[in-house]
Structures are given as C-alpha cells and as structure tokens.
C-alpha cells in the first residue's frame, strides 16, 4: 500500500516538476528577452526657414521603425541663427547624454561637433555646407563621430546665379546680402566672382548682422538690377527678407536664390534642397548609426538641388521664364 502510494506520489511529483519546468522556462525566456531600447535624439533645428527638415527626418525614422514616444524620443529645439543659443542647446543634449544629435544648419553642426568631441555622442548634420570648414575629414570618411547630409553650397550659388542670369539677362549689378561673418559665404562668393566677371556682372556684397543693418545697407545702394541670395541665414530670415522684398518691390528688381514669400514680397526663384528629402536622407544615416555603425565611417551624402520658380512673381516683374527652365523646376508657383 505504501509503495503504491509512493509510486503515485512520485508520478505526480514528476508531472508537477515537468509543468513547473516548462513554466519557469517560459518565464525565464520572457525575462531574458531584451526590452526594446528607447532612443533619445536631440534635434537642433537651427534655421526656421528649413525647419521642415525635422519633419522629413521624423517621417523617415518612423518608416524605419522608430516610433516617437515608443522607442524614440525627440528633444526638438527650434531656433534661428544664434550661436549662443546653439551652444546652449547642444550642451544640454550632451548633458542629457542623448543617443544621437541631429542638427542643422552649418554653424550649429560645427558647434555640435565641438561639443560632442570625446563624448561618443554621434552627430548627424543636415543642411550644412562642409566646404571650407573643418567639419569632416572627407566625404567618404568623415571621421570622428559625425556624418550627415551635405548642402551643395558653392554649386547651388552658381546655379542660382545662372538662373538669375537666365531670368534677368540684363542684370549687371547684383546685390548679394549675407550674414556678416558667416563661414560658408566666402566659398560661395569665391565660386561666384569668376563666373560673374566672365558674364560682365558686378556682385555687390552686402554683409549685415541683422535686418536693421541690412535695411541701412540697402538704403545706401543705388542702381541695383537684382538681388541674389547665397546660402546663409540672414536672407532667409523673414524680417530680413521683408526688408529685402520691400526694397526689391520698390525698385522693381528680381530677388532670387531662396524662395520666400513674406508680407506680400516674393522671391522669383529658389535653388535649394528639398527639406523633406534631405531630412529623410539624414534619417537613413541616423538609423545606421543607431544600429551600431560608427558615424565617422559613414560617408557624407549629398542633397539634390531643388528648383522652385515663382512664375507669378516672375511675370509680375516681366521676366521671361523659358520652358526649359520651367521643365526643370521641381516646384512652380503660379
């Protein structure tokens, strides 16, 4: 009787042990499963003119599986060109030990590179002119902890000049306003001067620190045929553009380079990059970095030119816009 009882007890104990083993195995498997990491990305949107780059970045990140507030948290800091603010924001990102910094434009990218040196925090830049500044070692191997999307600055400046010439072939005195001391301006001007000279065009530089100073500079100008923007932050500032637009409207001269419309003042065309697309390009690089590739080994990618034509503004100024040019436009405002 005792043996039979022991036999039954042993059988039941065996069954219980089996069930518990399975349960413990399942629990341990569950415990062993890694919880998805939540990435924190600091975004410094340093130029409101191209702030939608962040949208393109986020959209592409979402496509790649980074769902905001689920497995990725964005700390988006938006500002306009202000070096002190840039530094403060970047410093905050460093202190927060974010997993990645996405930054634009050029000056902010430079600040990000300097502030994150030695921290291991990778930086992805966008809307950044890399020529003439010490941001990357090379396009193929940027080095350090940085990579990003290159803004084709000098070529865009030339393209803007060519289109301005095509729209206003009579323009021989062209004002080039820009943010005083902005790093990327000299390379662009260097590219422009030979072409302008060959075309018999006089480029009149108008460096200013703000719209007030810009207005004064404009008031001092006489007999301007056109105003051409190079890639810099001052002219794309709405207040500054309003000053320029007002001046251009008063003098009935075309304004081109970056497409803006402020207070009823419009530029005629813009050659730039597609903010959404370039943001998406940057997102692909960020994805690769978050998956473990060192940022410095990822080649810098180049943004494509994006041509916008304000056909209506051109017609109001009596400019002839060729079909060929219109055909190349990525965006036409009628």
């Amino acid at each position, binding site marked *: *009787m*005792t*043996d*039979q009882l022991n*036999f039954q007890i042993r*059988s039941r104990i065996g069954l219980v042990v089996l069930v518990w083993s399975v349960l413990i195995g399942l629990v341990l498997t569950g415990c062993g499963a890694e919880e998805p990491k939540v990435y924190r990305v600091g975004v410094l949107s340093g130029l409101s003119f191209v702030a939608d780059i962040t949208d393109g970045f986020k959209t592409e990140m979402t496509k790649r599986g980074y769902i905001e507030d689920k497995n990725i948290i964005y700390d988006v800091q938006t500002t306009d060109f202000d070096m002190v603010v840039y530094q403060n924001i970047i410093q905050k990102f460093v202190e927060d030990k974010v997993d990645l910094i996405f930054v634009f434009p050029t000056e902010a990218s430079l600040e990000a590179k300097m502030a994150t040196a030695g921290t291991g925090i990778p930086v992805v830049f966008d809307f950044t002119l890399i020529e003439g500044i010490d941001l990357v070692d090379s*396009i*193929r*191997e940027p080095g350090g902890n940085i*990579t990003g999307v*290159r803004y*084709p600055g*000098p*070529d865009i400046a*030339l*393209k803007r*000049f*060519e289109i301005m010439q095509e729209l206003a072939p009579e323009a021989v005195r062209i004002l080039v306003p820009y943010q005083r001391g902005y790093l990327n301006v000299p390379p662009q001007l260097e590219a422009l001067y030979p*072409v302008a000279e060959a075309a018999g065009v006089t480029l009149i530089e108008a460096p200013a620190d703000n719209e007030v100073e810009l207005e004064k500079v404009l008031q001092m100008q006489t007999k301007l045929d056109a105003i051409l923007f190079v890639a810099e932050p001052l002219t794309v500032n709405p207040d500054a553009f309003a000053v320029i637009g007002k001046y251009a409207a008063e003098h009935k001269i075309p304004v081109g380079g970056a497409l803006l419309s402020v207070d009823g003042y419009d530029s005629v065309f813009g050659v730039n990059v597609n903010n959404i697309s370039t943001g998406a390009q940057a997102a*692909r*690089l960020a994805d*690769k970095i978050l998956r473990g*590739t060192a940022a410095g*080994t*990822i*080649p*810098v*990618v*180049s943004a*494509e*030119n994006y041509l916008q034509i304000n056909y209506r503004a051109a017609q109001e100024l009596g400019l002839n816009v*060729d*079909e*060929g*040019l*219109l*055909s*190349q*436009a990525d965006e036409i405002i009628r």
Partner: protein
Amino acid sequence: MAETLKTKRRLKPRSLTATLGIGFVALSLVVLLLASSLQLYAYFLAEQAVVAGKQRLIAQDAANEVRSFIQDRFEELKAAVKFSDLSNPTPAVVERNLGKLLGLQPAFRQLIQLDVDGQVIARSSRRSQTAGSEAMDRFRAEALARTSQKEQYISPAYIDEITFEPLLVMAVPVQDIFGDYQGSLIAEVNLKFMWDLVDRLKVGQTGVAYVVDRPGNLLAFGDITRVLAGENLSNLAEIAEFVKREDVFSEFEEEGTSVSTGINGTRVVAAYVPLGTPDWAVVTELPVIEAYTDVIQNFAISGMIILIIAVLAGISGVYLARSLAAPLHSLTETVTRITGGETQLQAKVEGPTEVAQLAEAFNKMTSQLQILLNSLEEQVQERTAELSLSMEVGQRASVIRNLEELLPTITEFIREQFDLYYVHVYFVDDVGENLVIKAGTGTVGQELLARRHMLPVGPGSIVGQVAASGQSIVVSDTEQSEIHKPNPLLPDTRSELAVPLTVEGRVIGVLDMQSDQANTFTEKNLTVFEAMGIQLAISIDSAQQWAASQNAQQRAEEALKRLTRETWSENLTTRRENPAYAYDLAIVSSLPPGTENGGVSVPVTVQNQSIGELSVKTGDGRSLSEDEQALMNAVAQQLAQKAETLRLFEQTQQRATREQIARQITDKIRASGDIESALKTAAVELSKALGAARAVVDLQVRQPSGEPDQSQSVDAKAANERTSSAQDTLSY
C-alpha cells in the same frame, strides 16, 4: 570517489515504469529519427534545387529591373531625339529641349547635344554650367565615335569627385528622318536614382539585391553609404566569380547559386546575373534561414511530430508499465505485509499471465513457508517444553541431597514428565570397569536393582558404550537400529537415549531413557536431554559430596563428644570431692557419689556430651511448667558452658605448669656435660617433678613395631644400621 558514486548511480535499479517509458521513447525516437532523417534529407535535396531555381528567377527579375533602368534612359534619350526639331537646331531650342528632358528625368544630371562635327550645340545641367562636366567630356570622344556609327553608347561607371555618387555617360545618335547621322545626344546619368530601384527590389522577405560593376565596385545598394564609401565586393565569392569570368554575357545563361557569405556578413544563398550592357552584374542574396524556411519548417514540424509521438510513446509506455507494475506493486505490498507478520495473506492472482504465474508461485511458496514455519514453531514449542521439563528435572534434582532419595525420585520424575516407557541410572563402579544400576523406574527397575544389575563399561551395550565414550547415543527407532539390543524386561522399547552423567570431564554414570514410541528421541532433542543429564550429574555429584560432608561432620562430632567425655571423666576422677551439690532451702551440701536426686532433671551437656544433671524437686510434688523447665535448661546450659570454661582454664594452667617444669628440666639437662649426667639429671628432675618414687631413663634401641610397610622396614633397617656401631643399652 566520483567514479564510485557514478557506479552506484549506474547500478541504482530503475523502476519498471521508468524503464518501459524510456524504452518506448528511445525506440520511437530512433525509428522516427531514422525515417525522418532520410525523408528530410531527400526533401532537402529537392528543396535545394527549388531554392536555387527561385533564387535564379529572383536574380533575373532584379537584373531585368536594372536593365530596364538603363534601357529606359536610352529610350528617353532616343525619344527626345526623335521629337526634337532637327530642321533648325538652334542652341536655344536645343537647350530648351534639353531642359525639358532634364525636367522629365531626374536621373539625367547633364545633357549635351553635339552636332555632326562634335561641337556642342547646347548644354543643360541640373548643376551649374561651370561645374562637373570634366568627367563627361572624358567620354565624349568615345561616345561620338560610337554614335557616329549610329550606335548607342554607355560608359563605365565613374564616381563624382564631389559627391562620390556613381555616374555614367550614355549617348545616342541624333538622326534625321532619313536616318542620317546629325549629331549626338550625351547624358550624364546619376546612378543614385537606381539606388531606390535596387532598394525596392524584393528578394524574399529579408534578402537584398545590389549591383556591382566588372571590377566589383558597389554601384547600387539599399545602404547607400556603402556605395558612397566606394566599397569593392570582389572578396565575396559570387562577385569574385563575376570579376574573374571573361566570357561574353549570354542573356539566357543560367547562373549557379551557392551558399556563401553575403554583403552583410551573413550566410546567404546568392545568385548573380551579368547584365552585359552595361558590364555589371546584379546580385541577389537571400539569408539561408529564409531561403530554407520551408525546409526548416519541415524540420520543425517533423521534430514536433517526433516529439509528440515520443511523448505519446512515453505516455503509452508509462501507462503500460503502470498496468504491468500495478499487480507487481500489489504483490510487493502483499510481501511487505507478510513480512510484517500477516503470514496468512495471499497475493492476488491478477494482471498479465507472467505476473499471475508469479503471484501463484508466490502463494505456493508462502504456503510452504507457512507449513515450515508452523513445523518450526511446533518444534520450538517441543524443544521449549522439553527444556522446561529438563529445567524442572534439574530443579527437582538440586533440592534432593540424599542420593538414595534423589535417584529413584528423579528417574520416576523424568519418566512421568516425558511420558517415557522406562528410565534408569547407572553409576560407574570405583574401578571404572562396570556400570551398576542405581535407580530404575517401575517393577523392571526394582527387579534390576534387586539383581544388582551390572553392565561392563565398553562395547556390548548402549549404556556401556556411552560410559566408555562419554558421548550420548540416540536410537530413534529400535527396529531400525543395529546397536540396540532388546531387553526381555523391556519388550516395548521403540526408542532409546543414553546420555553420559559427567562431572568435571569424568563420566560418573549414564542416564538411560526408553520410550515405547519411535522417534521420541532424535538428534534434534538430544541437546535437551544432554543438558538434563548434565544437571542430573551435577545434582548427583552434589548429593554425593553432601553425603560425604555429612559423614565427616558426624565423625567429627562423635570424636569431639568422645574427647569431651574422656576429658571430663578424667577431670572428675582426679577431683577429691564428689562434684555434686544440693540446696535444701537452708544450706548447700555436698552429695556423696551415687546419690539419687529425684524430681525433675535436665542434663548439663558440653559438646552434646552429658557431664551431669541439674535436678529440681518441688515440695508439693508438682511438675514444672514449661517456663520453669526452660529456665532449668538455660541454667543447665550456662552452667555447662561455665564448667567447660573453668575446666579448660584448669587444663591450661596445668599445661603451663608442665611446660615450665619441662623447661626447667630441659635447662638442667642441657647444662649436663655428657650423656650420663644428662640421663641422671633427667631421671632425678623428672622424679622430683612428678613426685615419683622412682624414675628410669633407659636408652636402648628397639625394633619399631607397626605395619609391615616396606618403607618402615627400610627405616627400621636404617635405624638398626645406625645403632649397630654404638653400645646396645644405657640405663639409669
């Protein structure tokens, strides 16, 4: 130590359930694994071919996509040429057309139209006119040469120096309506627009496709950074094969597939298809796990089936084992209970035939064991009873000290207690030659005692043999015995046992018992009777010793009594007055010898020897009460003791006086200078001491009288020899 533990573990018996369960699982696993392995291997081979075919198809599709990308660009260029106004190819018109074409296809980065002489009619660029035409110009002559032959041209891929994006130059001839060559339309194509196409190529769920040129440089891949990095993939097996091959592309050629390390470093099933024009290859890679998903699933399903069957087999084995084990457990339980004392229990005959047979055999065995056990119990009871009787015999014998009483009593007691036919005891005589009967039961015993029946020690009788050897003899059945000799006086004897009566290793006699039942005495109960014989022998010896001591004591008492009588006689004789006194309530007067005392007398005894009497005569003639007589006895006893004490004191004084006189005489004798004076002194002093009238000292040697003992004769002879040399007599 560990090895020992291991061995112990190995040797640990496993339960039937576990054994059968494991056996079923193992057997089913072996069979299923063998069958499944063969089936899966065959399936794997078939699936491998299928995977290879699929992979080739995927690679072909991918190649067609890439080929289409290039072909479409050619078609766009050709269409542009076809729909151009060639009648008046002014630069403005051409530039407009080129601009439209740029707007139509973003992959075109630059377009140049040349006239029949190779001069630039117009140029249109997505970039600035001043930038980036050097590379394109590098292939212009080559393109012109080809297009002038009315052939289309495509250059090798090259890398943009600023963006590091791959580019190539394509050119088509410009022909008029008659087909005459009018110039060339050259386009610089940015292959980054092929990246998205390649990235979109679907290769399974997780596979990838990419494009390499002949040197193995990566031209298009989902991870564009690797393209921009100018990665060369000729280290990969598939790419190396493409790089090395020199044969011309055959559109319908079937390329092989292989499992190798892919572009992402994982094991993949890779296939490539050369495009021919351009001289690229499209490579598709599918991770092995995905490529062989069906095989893996099949493996998994087979594994699950095997597992399920193994579990079922295990359960079946356990169920079967338990059904087999249940009757065994029942049997085990029965055994346990029987072991616990329930000896009447029977196992249930149930279960499989073998187990039922086992239960039956077990029941038979337990029955036989029960019988044996009962028999043993009976024997034990018999032995116990016999031992008890034996002890009783010993006890009875030990309390009887008189041998004359002991032997008949015990022999009869043994006969009665053991329900025997006849019992008798023989003693070995003083010379050890014969056995003399000392006791016997019944009339036969009386007759033999009367006859003083004797048997010689040694062969000739069972009793004689036992006395000679000191070993018991059992005759369980007299009819079967050769040594048993029938006694006419005991005709019904069927079983006989004779045990020696041994004391300190010496046989003093034999106890012989006879039964009228065969097998009353056996080797099994021999020990009991031998023990009884030992006890009886001890009792006999004890009785003999007791009798001897009694005799000795009696003799001692008689001697003491005689000595007391003689001493007192002598003492009384030497006294001047008659030691008898009377008190008549007035005076104490001495009585003359022979006076009758009358009245009540009590003896005055010393050492049980009466030395006188104490008499009391009452005046009224009444007799004395018991208390008075007791008083008289006590007084007589006290008187006797005192008298004896005083006598001894006197005797001691006399001895002391004699010894003193003897010492004085001795001292004087010692003072003598020769024998004569010593003799004289002895005679004089002895006469004085004794108050004798005459004392004689006469030295002469006489023949000593006594038993004619040899040794005494020798001593006498020696004495004679010693005195023969001296004078014969010397007297005073």
